[in-house]
């Protein structure tokens, strides 16, 4: 255990003057590199702070990209697949439907990303097409595979954050698959493996160092899905004794709704003034 805490109690509180920035921890990571005590920052993702500004590419928002199909799938889960009586079966059937829908959605995201990259002024990449070519298709399939694989770390995360161990393992894993398809797949279509700044982008994403996340429709969709999933645990302990309080129905619902809401917030945020100029800065 490192005992390198250079933190201190102030000798006297008088030194806090109004307006004086006494501490540097802010809610959104500040873009300057004035992080204190550099030597403590030793994780692999740490080198991103070496670059002066954690900035990732923000795709243009589009109404078409609001994932309304998620609402339909969620509705079908409750009616057609009857998730309240057969949780595992409904999760599995919904997963097939979700995978196909997200594949089509992935095409939309890819096309939109291509278009925004072309529009963006400071575009470094020459090889950009606004349409959907075979390379994109390959990338999309690869993204699908990757997002399915991402369910493993997501599953571990769920467990660490309190999902039951030793029971309902299948359900939790199916939930992780749903989460992967909703959050990771569109992100992989935006920040592609083939991009040269893939590593930096994903290091920023995974450490939540995203500039103006509320303008980034795809990123805020992922965040919204996660937050919705998290908030979904709240109804479970209540004593209403309803079938939909079973694990993990509320988490699933929360994630779907959170994804749609997050996406819509990103779309609205993108429409705010001064957004068009700073897209890729």
């Amino acid at each position, binding site marked *: 255990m490192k005992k390198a*805490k250079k933190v*201190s*109690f*102030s000798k006297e509180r008088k030194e806090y003057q109004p307006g004086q920035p006494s501490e540097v921890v802010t809610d959104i990571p500040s873009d300057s590199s004035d992080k204190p005590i550099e030597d403590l920052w030793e*994780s692999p993702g740490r080198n991103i702070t070496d670059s002066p500004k954690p900035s990732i590419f923000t795709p243009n928002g589009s109404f078409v990209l609001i994932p309304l199909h998620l609402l339909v799938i969620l509705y079908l889960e409750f009616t057609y697949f009857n998730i309240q009586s057969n949780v595992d079966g409904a999760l599995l059937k919904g997963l097939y439907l979700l995978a196909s829908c997200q594949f089509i959605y992935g095409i939309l995201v890819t096309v939109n990303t291509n278009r925004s990259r072309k529009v963006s002024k400071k575009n470094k990449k020459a090889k950009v097409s606004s349409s959907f070519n075979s390379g994109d298709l390959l990338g999309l399939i690869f993204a699908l595979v990757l997002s399915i694989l991402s369910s493993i770390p997501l599953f571990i995360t769920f467990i660490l954050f*309190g999902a039951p161990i030793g029971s309902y393992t299948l359900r939790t894993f199916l939930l992780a698959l749903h989460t992967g398809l909703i959050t990771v797949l569109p992100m992989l279509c935006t920040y592609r493996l083939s991009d040269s700044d893939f590593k930096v982008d994903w290091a920023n994403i995974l450490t939540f160092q995203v500039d103006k996340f509320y303008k980034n429709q795809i990123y805020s969709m992922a965040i919204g899905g996660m937050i919705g999933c998290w908030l979904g*645990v709240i109804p479970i*302990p209540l*004593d209403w004794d309803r079938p939909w309080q079973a694990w993990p129905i509320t988490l699933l619902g929360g994630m779907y709704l959170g994804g749609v809401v997050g996406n819509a917030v990103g779309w609205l945020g993108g429409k705010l003034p001064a957004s068009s100029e700073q897209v890729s800065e």
Partner: protein
Amino acid sequence: MHILSILLLILAELLSYLIFCKGFFPTKVLLTPEELARFNTEPPKGFKDPPRQFDRVVFMLVDAMRADFVFSQQSHMKFAQQLINDGNAIGFTAYSNPPTVTLPRLKGITTGSIPNFIDAVLNIAEDDTSSTLGDQDSWVKQMIQNNWNIHMFGDDTWLKLFPGYFSKSDGTSSFYVSDYTIVDHNVTRHLPEELSDEGLDQWNCMILHYLGLDHIGHKGGPQSANMPGKQVELDSVVKQIFNGLLKDDPNTLMVLLGDHGMNDAGNHGGSSVGEVSSGMVLISSKFGGMKKALSSSELPLSVDPSFNYLQNIDQIDLVPTLAELTGLNVPINSLGTFIPSLLPLYHSSLDRCNVLIKNALQLKVLLDKSHSDNSLLPLDHYCNVSSEQELTDYIVSAKRELSETSSDYNYHDLHLGIALYLLLTIISIFWFAYHYRYQPILGVTIITFFITYGLSFIGSSLIEEEHHIWWFFTTIFSSYLIQHSPTFWPSLSLLISLRILKAWNNSGQKYNSSEYLKIASYLSSLAPKIGPNVFAFLLLLTFLPFFISKVKIHFGAQQTLVDFVEFVSLSMMTFILMTIKMLSFLTSTYNLDVEDTGLQKIWLDFIDWLRAYSALKDFNSISNQLFRLFHYVWFICAIGTFLKSRISRSLHIPMTIDEYTRNILVLFTYLSISQTNFINVPLYGVMYFVYLGFNSLVPKVSGLRLSSYLSLFTILLQNLSFFQFGSTNSLASVDLTNSFNGLTSYNMILSGVLTFVANWAAPIFWSVVYTVMSLDALPRGACKWNCLYDRMIFNLTFYSLTGLLLIGSCYNLRFHLFIWTVFSPKLLYYLAWLGCNLVADFAVSAIVIGASETEGEVSRQPVEEKAN
């Protein structure tokens, strides 16, 4: 000094909370014989005791017999149903007043009074002698006074309640919950003798208490596969008694009843409809001559989820009914009313009126007393004593009024408590706002958290499942920390150790089932071949980090005599503690009395060695002796630790603050461990890793911001680990296994302290961790009292805001169905948390900080200036 005014505020807060509790839990005052004489009024003219109907009673109590177990289509008690259909018996759904636990219910069934919440609390604390009903009036006592001979077979709770009352008894301990055959066989085997001609001369009343059905319920719920067979068995007992005795003797009454019901999980104690709906059947061949008054439906009845089978009565109504039918006086504190459907047993209208008048006179004494009415008007002033209807109305309204006043609140105290608490809350919020005036966002976030938590007191299920709330907040806080300084290993250490902490015991009152992984129960279910080895390994792992963290400072340094003494005493404490915990693991997990324990030889040798060394046979006295030894060593170490810094300063030997805090951490961790249930001891290792993970993740800030992070973390972990140690907000989860450690004789104060430390061991640990962390982070020259000052403002605001919301919620919901089962226990738990705040968070921290010698001693002035 501001620390002192904070202490005053904490004490004032505790005081106003106590005032509220005093109004909320009024102690019930029972009627004394003197008062009986004082409030007695003349009976109306022409009143004489109604003739007795029965001179022999068979009282068959089937523990947890829910109404549907007798009356519904799913019941297998066909003979009892046939008796009701034939008119030889009358069935009721009897309402059992919560708490639906056997002991309070037995009190209710025999005395006719409604137990209040404090009774239930006292039942936990009481030792056996004080829970008797020796001085309270009951039909059992009335029978004895009228020279009845009572035989009792079954649950030995009766023997505790009525010591020396029974001329013949065979008590069964209800302790062996897993057995449901022998407990009942022990009762039934007496029947042939008791029902024989010679046997019948010996008794007038026979009490049978069957426990098997309750045990089946606890094990497998009401739908258990063993339930039908048990009902058939009980039914055959009814048949045996009816055919052997009642059929030919119309002057014998048989009462078949359950003391309470059970919920769908087979447990009881609360106030759900299944738990309060017990079955009751009165059987006598005399009833055959009575017009079947309310025989509307033939049994069995279809299953009714709201448990309205046949007539609904209160269970306590049995008390005056039984007393009058057998010609006894009605027990003086009974609130019951005569069961109307038995009135037709008396053929003349005059007798029927006299029955009701006798009941009314008894209730009128209680009523006059509760009105403190000195005019004492006779009964005929209130109703027409020759009208059955008016008399019935009178006793029913008297019962209603009395049962309401018996759970009455003292509104003067309630309002005073709330007002004082509100005042203190306002003061502390202003102080908090002033303190956080340069950190407004942080302050508002903290207050929001307090209020969010406090709002959870509105919902009964949120109180029952409070551990979810703390887990939720803890994960939010850890994600915040990780997001701000995402270092990989500390984050992983924090998350994994928190998850292990959560998985160790599942807390909560409802979903605490075995389908979720519980490491603690997994450990105790390991086979005797490997279980002790695994546990011993975990114990070693737990003590190792603490041991190393203290010893490693001395590595390489020049050793002094003091260091050597310290090392020896530390090793001694570690060794004693490991021995104690290992011993209690072995004794509680395995049966060591049998020949083939299945344990490995090393553990058998371990036990033999302990027995030889202590020259004692009994494991309890061995561990008690070890505890005494531990307490001596611990006190010496504690005094040494506190004095050492003083001494080393006067000798000019440099002693770092680091060394001091290590000593303190180890000292208090060992104390907490000694009072912790053995199965939870490995959690201290886990919590140590939580502490390490947090310590490297906490943002690199200083001053108030840092102490806010530390305080927030402390309060989250205090509560989270409190619940994950297996505690809940139900009184049932109070752990009494460590209440008598090292005590040679019963001492209420000392064992109270030990009980508190045993149940709040984890919060005490975290409180000390806070002090250690903040002293470690204290820069040279800073005032050490700042550590305490910041934390106490934080805690004061937390406890005043959430406490206000709690007492407000309890006041608002004081007529709620769950007020006695959910909200009142929470109120008491919260009182203990306030005590924890005063003792552990304030007093212990103050002592630890006060005894520390830092260079910051000189700079005491700034605090006082600052706060002005």
